[in-house]
């Protein structure tokens, strides 16, 4: 296709779970992100906009499948780069009143559980983890994303839910129960340079993998690739 490059400020499309970290970077001075325009939405929405020729330099997806689709459709020849990783935790009400300790507690009869829906990335990760651990969980609801699960937990509507570690960390009224089974889950944030190697996009991606970028990411609870 035509040049993906935006006309003025560089534009970054990012999965909405990166809101806090990228906003912080763009608010700070003298980083390549300080004069970047950020647009957050679900990875799928952003991909749809890119397919419609949206002016964008870098796309950071929470879902490798979206990146692959774009590459297959010929939107970029650049190599996708993993910039951050995330983990899964059990989100529980602040203070963990039901004293949930491990993944197995989710199948307790007195525990109402929310999971992300099959088909959305978080749902697929959760399902994979539970089936690997051979734990049968019957949730009361399949939420569309981590926000949904977290909101249900935060409002006390369910007792527990499986979410990304970063989301659980940033939410108030919610505590995380770290689960060892999550180690096996590989949640990756993949960045794709859409500027056809002109440099601007690559600079941004490189900054994220630099020390400054890495410390910002780890501050928000992300894991490094």
């Amino acid at each position, binding site marked *: 296709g035509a040049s993906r490059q935006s006309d003025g400020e560089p534009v970054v499309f990012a999965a909405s779970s990166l809101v806090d970290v990228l906003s912080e970077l763009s608010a700070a001075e003298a980083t390549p992100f300080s004069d970047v325009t950020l647009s957050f939405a*679900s*990875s*799928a*929405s952003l*991909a*749809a906009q890119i397919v419609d020729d949206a002016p964008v330099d870098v796309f950071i997806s929470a879902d490798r*499948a979206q990146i692959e689709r774009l590459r297959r459709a010929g939107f970029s020849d650049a190599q996708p780069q993993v910039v951050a990783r995330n983990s899964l935790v059990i989100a529980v009400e602040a203070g963990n009143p039901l004293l949930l300790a491990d993944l197995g507690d989710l199948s307790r009869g007195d525990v109402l559980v*929310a999971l992300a*829906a099959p*088909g*959305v*990335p978080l749902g697929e990760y959760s399902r994979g983890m539970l089936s690997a651990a051979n734990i049968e969980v019957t*949730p*009361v*609801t*399949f*939420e*569309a*994303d981590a926000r*949904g699960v977290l*909101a*249900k937990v935060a*409002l*006390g*509507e369910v007792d527990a839910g499986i979410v990304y570690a970063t989301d659980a960390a940033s939410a108030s009224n919610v505590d995380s129960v770290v689960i060892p089974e999550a180690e096996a889950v590989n949640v990756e944030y993949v960045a794709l340079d859409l500027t056809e190697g002109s440099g601007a996009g690559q600079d941004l991606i490189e900054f994220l993998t630099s020390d400054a970028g890495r410390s910002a990411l780890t501050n928000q609870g992300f894991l490094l690739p």
Partner: protein
Amino acid sequence: MSRQQRHDARVPIALAVLGWLAVAFFVVPIVALVIRVPWSSLSDVITDDATTEALTLSVLTSVITTVLAIVLGVPLAWLLARSNIPGRQFIRALCTLSMVLPPVVAGVALLASLGRRGVVGAILDDWFGVRLPFPMPAVVIAQLFVAMPFLVLTVESGFARSAGTVEEAARTLGASPWYVFTRVTLPATQPAIIAGAVLTWARALGEFGATITFAGNFPGTTRTLPIATYLALESDIDDALLISMVMVVISVVILVALRGRWVGAIGGVR
């Protein structure tokens, strides 16, 4: 007849131009969408049990919501339009707020009141063991909360044009206020009620944010078609478009059938 109609229907040109522009504005995206949809995989989607389940649930809940909205909303509109209750303006604003709230926030408001920890919900839970969120009635409640204001405002504007001395005449003929309301006022307001019901139904059918927040998403009980569409969007936009097309077709059929029947008879060309 034909010559008369030609004359009487003379449309001011400015009106016609703007009106047809509006038609184009609506039709072009719909056509583009229809072109865009990968119809070849239609059969996969509509034979999928999950889709039909969601479709059934959506139609069922949106119809129940519409009926409840009429039952509750018409009296409310009447109170707002015709009675002297104090603070009418304020009550009207409160009752239309849910329309302005982002649907997710509307869902949060419902949880905060009717949820397990909610003001009313906690009482229901403690006293009667009733938990509203998650089962199917919660879907109806969520839809009702965001969609009923559309009916209320439309019907209120209908009541505002009063039936004048006709209602008085009915009273002098011995009709009680209730009889007058059902036999004179309601029929005279029918076009507005139908319009309001269609709006409410449409809004309820497309409702997503409040539903998933308040009622969650469970196949068969709370996964409506919009939720299914949204989830499909996360993985495959083509599937999502196909699912939404099912909804479009059903809506067109219902809208054409319904409006043709009920409104055509009253409104239409004089």
